[in-house]
């Protein structure tokens, strides 16, 4: 291996600029003659727009223009599209109501866009927005899913009972038959709490229109610039690709929330051609809270059928998922194909049936957030399996081991569509049990008890599906686009390399990891490789970064392009070295003629390619610059085991996460340090979901957790020193045998934390705690516990 190739923990090249304040984010960009936008947003969750009077505001100082939904509608601007069509049980397509960029007849959530004010300064735009007189006729809001499903108040007139779709997967009859012969049935009801993503950098955009060329440019905080170009250009504004450039410069975190095509992008781009000025908009943190797509928000009932020995016979799941007021880009796929297709988990459950109802509510749209569907699935399964062990008086370790898919069963076809290509859950589980000293837990529990603390241990064993996605599979499931990835590897004359990737890095370290792939392939140091991403004028195409796909899908595309480069370079070397191409070998950055000492360095060949004095010009073109597209054969399936230990203070209900052990199988590891960092970040978000974070709307649809006063993000002192290791099983369905690591931490960890808290409280008779397990909630559970009440 190259010293900076696959497996090397080299430092992230992007950190120098990130850590020294030299990142180049959208809000850092200022264009000549730029104007500033302020978006007027609805303070009501649901209201009819009787009128929007902008006359007074238009006369305010500095105002250049004000546009409303009526203006965009008059221009024939299309609605914001959804990228994935789901079908109902009866085969009919989902309800897909319109999603105007600026509200036309109604506002449907607090924060919905009503008008854009463009002015010389941001403050002028904001002041003018206050002068817009909007006559709202407030309508009853549909906030919680049950109320919404009653249909008393319709978010969209064309979605009866506020149902988006009623979908199913699995074999209902086989599952019912499994329950009919079960010795035990264990049931659970739980909610997966709604989360607000809170990327460090708020969303921002600058739009430009060049009158002389008719060309639009939009700098925007997106995880997938080409997807935005496709969706906004083709479906919303009808701008052909050659007239539309999207640039995503440095982006300060996304976690999924910056995948989606947001209305502001379309509004700004459209308006730039109206005012003939660049327009800049940057969300305030308050706007981020109320307009970034939220995550999770499921309510689920599930039953697990077991035989007398504890073998799983069947699983039955009924989930309600909140999609918010509008269908966001992937809002329909997250609670279906990214959720219920994983209900086998790591277990060989023979029969599974799941039904998912999705519900429109007067809340901000819900879409993918780190893990997207898989955390909801893992939380359900691992809570349910732990409950089964407790209810049946079985050991939670043994119950899991007894039901796990064994290594010799791969490839394993689950009853819910997916085929796991490779894995070894028993192995990662065994390693995690050892690393966490599971066997020694009771002694630690006893020691904590002496200190007045309740200590508990919780397990989560999980598998997830990422590397999104094999295009044919995704297409068959309703995705409206293929999800392959592209790469271009341009070798420069003196042997340095620029890689253009269609994925996008917003903190993941692609500029380092992808350089390592090239370093490995060409035998050159990684610092001779520059990774370029984010600009649709530079990168031929791409589907962006989400679903832990960048290395698993984008990586093989880079590898394919590298191999094309090597194939061509071999021909050039063969010509110069006067050998047959079949006798040329390439290793360690050198082309050699087999059995001789004749060799050419990589850079010598690249120079010859661009300065073709002695070159087979009749046979091959000059240059060393190759494109490749890669479409994966299957999803990739990372998995592993997370074990958490907590201590609960019974007097205050405060939960301290004492230890957290994660053993993850992410396949081949390119940069162990980056992988560890990704797991750390995911675990922090998972612990955040479990004990701190929870979005709350009141019954009228007002966002009560709209700032950091009321929405708690995890901080360093909420987290232990994680014990993180990887244990890769090779065989993933891509040439790199990588599986994806971006989301595993957030997927596996929440049930481990909650199972640990319930274990800690179990001596008090507490059997359930919902997320987030705040001190108040835990304290209330302790007060209400049967054991405590009996004692008093």
């Amino acid at each position, binding site marked *: 291996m190259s010293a900076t190739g696959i497996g090397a923990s080299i430092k992230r090249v992007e950190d120098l600029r990130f850590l020294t304040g030299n990142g180049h984010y959208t809000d850092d960009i200022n264009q000549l003659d730029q104007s500033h936008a302020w978006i007027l947003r609805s*303070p*009501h969750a649901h209201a009819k727009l009787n009128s929007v009077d902008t006359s007074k505001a238009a006369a305010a100082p500095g105002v250049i223009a004000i546009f409303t939904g009526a203006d965009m509608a008059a221009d024939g601007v299309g609605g914001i599209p959804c990228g994935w069509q789901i079908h109902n049980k009866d085969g009919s397509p989902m309800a897909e109501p319109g999603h105007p960029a600026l509200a036309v007849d109604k506002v449907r959530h*607090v924060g919905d866009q009503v008008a854009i004010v463009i002015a010389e300064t941001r403050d002028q735009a*904001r002041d003018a927005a206050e002068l817009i007189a909007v006559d709202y006729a407030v309508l009853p809001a549909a906030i919680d899913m049950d109320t919404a499903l009653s249909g008393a108040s319709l978010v969209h007139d064309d979605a009866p009972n506020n149902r988006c779709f009623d979908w199913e997967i699995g074999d209902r009859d086989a599952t019912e038959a499994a329950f009919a012969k079960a010795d035990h049935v264990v049931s659970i009801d739980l909610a997966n709490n709604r989360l607000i993503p809170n990327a460090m950098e708020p969303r921002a955009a600058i739009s430009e229109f060049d009158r002389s060329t008719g060309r639009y440019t939009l700098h925007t905080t997106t995880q997938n610039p080409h997807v935005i170009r496709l969706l906004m250009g083709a479906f919303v504004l009808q701008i052909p690709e050659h007239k539309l450039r999207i640039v995503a410069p440095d982006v300060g975190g996304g976690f999924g929330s910056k995948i989606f095509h947001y209305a502001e992008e379309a509004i700004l781009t459209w308006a730039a051609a109206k005012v003939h000025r660049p327009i800049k908009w940057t969300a305030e943190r*308050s706007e981020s809270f109320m307009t970034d797509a939220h995550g999770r928000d499921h309510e689920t009932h599930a039953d697990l059928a077991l035989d007398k020995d504890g073998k799983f016979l069947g699983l039955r799941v009924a989930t309600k998922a909140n999609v918010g007021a509008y269908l966001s880009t992937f809002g329909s796929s997250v609670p279906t194909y990214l959720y219920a297709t994983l209900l086998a988990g790591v277990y060989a459950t023979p029969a599974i049936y799941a039904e998912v109802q999705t519900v429109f509510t007067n809340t901000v749209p819900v879409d993918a957030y780190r893990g997207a569907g898989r955390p909801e699935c893992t939380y359900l399964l691992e809570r349910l399996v732990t409950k089964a062990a407790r209810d049946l008086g079985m050991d939670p370790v043994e119950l899991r081991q007894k039901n796990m898919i064994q290594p010799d069963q791969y490839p394993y076809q689950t009853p819910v569509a997916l085929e796991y290509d490779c894995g070894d859950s028993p192995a990662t589980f065994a390693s995690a049990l050892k690393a966490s000293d599971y066997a020694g837990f009771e002694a630690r529990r006893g020691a904590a008890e002496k200190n007045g603390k309740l200590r508990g241990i919780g397990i989560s064993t999980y598998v997830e599906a990422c590397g999104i996605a094999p295009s044919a599979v995704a297409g068959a499931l309703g995705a409206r686009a293929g999800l392959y990835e592209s790469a271009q590897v341009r070798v420069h004359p003196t042997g340095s390399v620029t890689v253009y990737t269609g994925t996008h890095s917003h903190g993941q370290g692609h500029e380092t990891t992808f350089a390592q792939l090239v370093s490995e392939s060409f035998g050159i140091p990684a610092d001779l490789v520059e990774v370029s991403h984010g600009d649709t004028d530079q990168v031929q195409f791409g589907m962006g970064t989400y679903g832990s796909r960048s290395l698993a899908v984008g990586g093989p595309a880079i590898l394919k392009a590298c191999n094309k480069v090597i194939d061509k370079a071999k021909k050039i070397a063969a010509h110069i070295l006067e050998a047959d191409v079949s006798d040329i070998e390439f290793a360690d950055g050198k082309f050699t003629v087999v059995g001789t000492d004749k060799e050419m360095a990589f850079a010598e060949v690249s120079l010859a390619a661009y300065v073709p004095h002695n070159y087979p010009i009749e046979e091959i073109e000059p240059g060393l610059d190759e494109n490749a597209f890669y479409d994966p054969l299957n999803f990739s399936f990372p998995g592993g085991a997370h074990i958490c230990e907590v201590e609960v203070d019974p007097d205050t209900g405060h939960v301290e996460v004492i230890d957290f052990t994660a053993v993850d199988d992410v396949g081949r590891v390119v940069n162990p340090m980056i992988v560890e960092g990704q797991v750390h970040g995911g675990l922090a978000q998972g612990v955040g979901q479990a004990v701190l974070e929870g979005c709350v709307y009141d019954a009228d649809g*007002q966002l*009560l957790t709209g*700032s950091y*006063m*009321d929405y708690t993000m995890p901080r360093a002192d909420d987290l232990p020193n994680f014990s993180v290791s990887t244990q890769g099983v090779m065989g993933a369905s891509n040439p790199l045998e990588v599986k994806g690591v971006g989301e595993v931490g957030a997927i596996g960890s929440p049930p481990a934390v909650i199972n640990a808290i319930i274990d800690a409280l179990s001596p008090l008779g507490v059997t359930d705690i919902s997320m987030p397990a705040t001190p108040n909630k835990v304290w209330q559970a302790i007060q209400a516990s049967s054991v405590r009440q009996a004692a008093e």
Partner: protein
Amino acid sequence: MEMSGEYKINASREKVWEALNDPEILKQSIPGCEEIDQKSPTEMSAKVTAKVGPVKAKFSGEVELTDLDPPNGYRISGEGKGGAAGFAKGGANVTLEEDGAGTLLKYEVDAQVGGKLAQLGARLIDGTAKKMAGQFFENFAAAVESGEESAAPAVDGPAAAETAPAPAAPATGTDTSATAQIGMWTWIGGAAVAAVVLYALFA
């Protein structure tokens, strides 16, 4: 937000009732109140600058009196718009009961806030409403005192003198057992209710 309370007021129901309908007294007493215009016997418009936690804004809105049953009570309701800060709407059911020589004034306030006010200040509404009501009593006591000096001495003047220095702030809020003995400033209670209501409406 929901708030309820009651006051023991040493004045007739008729006097209290009148006070509930005096825009000038209300304007002088409500913290941040810039205008109250009586548009009809049952309709007022008002402008109030209020601060809830980090949100400060000028609210303007309409107030309507319904279910008028003089001198037994009414419902006061309305909606205030605070521009970028959001909105507040709600109302209060006010009842006046004879209680010996005085009047027992009971109120039940229900109010909703929206937009940035809810996003940033929802949890601060209750505390701020109590504080505002306390300020109101102080202002109102002073306003009434100067008014009373030029007026004929009230029958229960001596009783009032004993308690006048203490503003009746504790009488507001969710503590329904709280009562205020504020002597001759009987109608302060009524105006205080209106202040709480207006506060809830405009903040």
